[in-house]
């Protein structure tokens, strides 16, 4: 089984996040992974006790748009608060293609390197989102993607509008 998983480690000023396997919305089990990542980032951004985030995608096999949106959130926060772009490690051509397609090569520092910078990592604490929180996670992730460039906006406009309606209806 190739369900997605996210591990993390802390070293000096650097927080390392490693994405493993399929981080896909449609994949079974990855909703909880995405929820855990979202909760972790929320906490991290509140604590603000780091200087740098490094995304290790060397063991990722695929990434969905919600995860891409969370990644966009990460580099945006890093640039705003620490004046740095987030570094992405990747060795997978498919992943590279996906990242380039949403223009991430301009907002991240892309490094092609197979070896992980951190051998010892631990799993993110589990988070259980309610449906409403889940929708809002997906929505903000895609809003983030849309803000990056015109092409993303065109790609995700429909989804964002639909989710916005659903959120408004729920409230």
């Amino acid at each position, binding site marked *: 089984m190739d369900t997605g998983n996210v591990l993390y480690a802390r070293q*000096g*000023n*650097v927080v390392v996040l490693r994405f493993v396997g399929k981080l896909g919305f449609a994949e079974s089990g990855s909703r909880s992974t995405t929820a855990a990542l979202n909760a972790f980032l929320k906490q991290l951004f509140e604590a603000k006790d780091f200087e740098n985030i490094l995304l290790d995608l060397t063991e990722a096999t695929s990434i969905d748009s919600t995860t891409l949106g969370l990644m966009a959130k990460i580099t945006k926060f890093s640039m705003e608060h*620490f*004046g*740095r772009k987030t570094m992405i490690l990747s060795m997978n051509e498919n992943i590279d293609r996906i990242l380039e397609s949403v223009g991430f090569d301009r907002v991240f*520092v892309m490094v092609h*390197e197979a070896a992980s*910078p*951190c051998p010892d990592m631990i799993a993110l604490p589990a988070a259980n989102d309610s449906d409403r929180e889940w929708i809002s996670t997906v929505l903000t992730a895609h809003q983030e993607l849309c803000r990056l460039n015109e092409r993303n906006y065109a790609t995700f406009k429909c989804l964002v509008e639909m989710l916005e309606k659903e959120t408004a209806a729920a409230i």
Partner: protein
Amino acid sequence: MRNPPRILSIEDEATVRRSMMVYLSDSGYEVLEAENGRIGLERILTDQPDLILCDLRMPEVDGLKVLDEVKRLMPDTPFIVVSGTGDMRDVIQALRLGAWDYLMKPIEDMGVLDHAVTRALQQARLIQQNQRYHEELVATNRRLQQSLQQLQEDETAARNIQFQLLPQHPWAVDDLVFDYFIRTSAFLSGDFLDYFRIDDSRLGLYVADVSGHGASSAFVTVLLKSTVSRLLNEYREFKIQTVLLPDRVLSLINDAIVERQFNKYLTMFYAVVDTAAGIVKYCNAGHFPYPIYHDGHAARFLEDRNLPVGLFDGSTYATKELAFQGPFTLTMFSDGVLEVLPSDLIPEKEALLLSRMNAGDPDVEMLVETLGLTQQDQVPDDITLLQLRKGG
């Protein structure tokens, strides 16, 4: 960590180095420079910086080698890599080796450098603090361990003394047999007993229960033993009669303990057996349960109520007498025995004890057996049995 913290920049590009140093110096840091890895390593050893900024690509000794050395020599010193964008794989390698952060050259915004340095120093301070707490904790623990060991050695010494003071048993003399059983609850016993020949026809015995345990209780038993042997000597050498008179012995020990302010007291039963006259003279200073006298037909308590020894200045005691003709046993208990008897009421426990003695006039070994004194894993109080058995 120094105040202000000392920062070493190892960088072969002079302009990059200077711009960082000027900025950090203006921010209040003490700054040191090294133009290559070799000089950098020397300065690390001589100047012990609180934080190291280090380029990766340098002639002679490169940044990864410097990092390797720093991790070996001073693993908790923050090490921040400052590198060109072309060296990204080396940056990853540096992180793998334990670098704290990495900055990209050229550093366009010096605020980023300031931020990274501040954060790293903050973390280093926390690590140092935790280490100090840990060391203090370890040191305190070691001191506690030592004093505990000291205490244990003291108690062991006291315990050895106390056990050495106990008489041999069983002890057969004339047609009498003395025997006892002591089971201690804590490391040190508060119970003590002794028996001894006074002259051709007379023997003395006592059983005592000192309040509390520990070394000071053991010292009280030493005092008991030495007081009684002094009285014995005085009798043998000068015919001073005190040791023959239970009430006098108890009041003498009472005064000795009150006077010395031991803050300890004891219950004590003291008796003198005169085999020629067929008389037991005894006095009980608060010792409970009462001794049980078995005349060969039936057992009964020797009820005698007096104040314990060592509580009140000038306590007086009265000696009682008991005449015997044939065989008899006199059995004394410490109150610890009550704790193991299967009842909640003291009168019931007393009745139980008496019925045990009535059932065949058991000796010490049989009593230990029928009362189950060795069965429980732990007893709440010391348990002592002392028995004098007269045959014939």
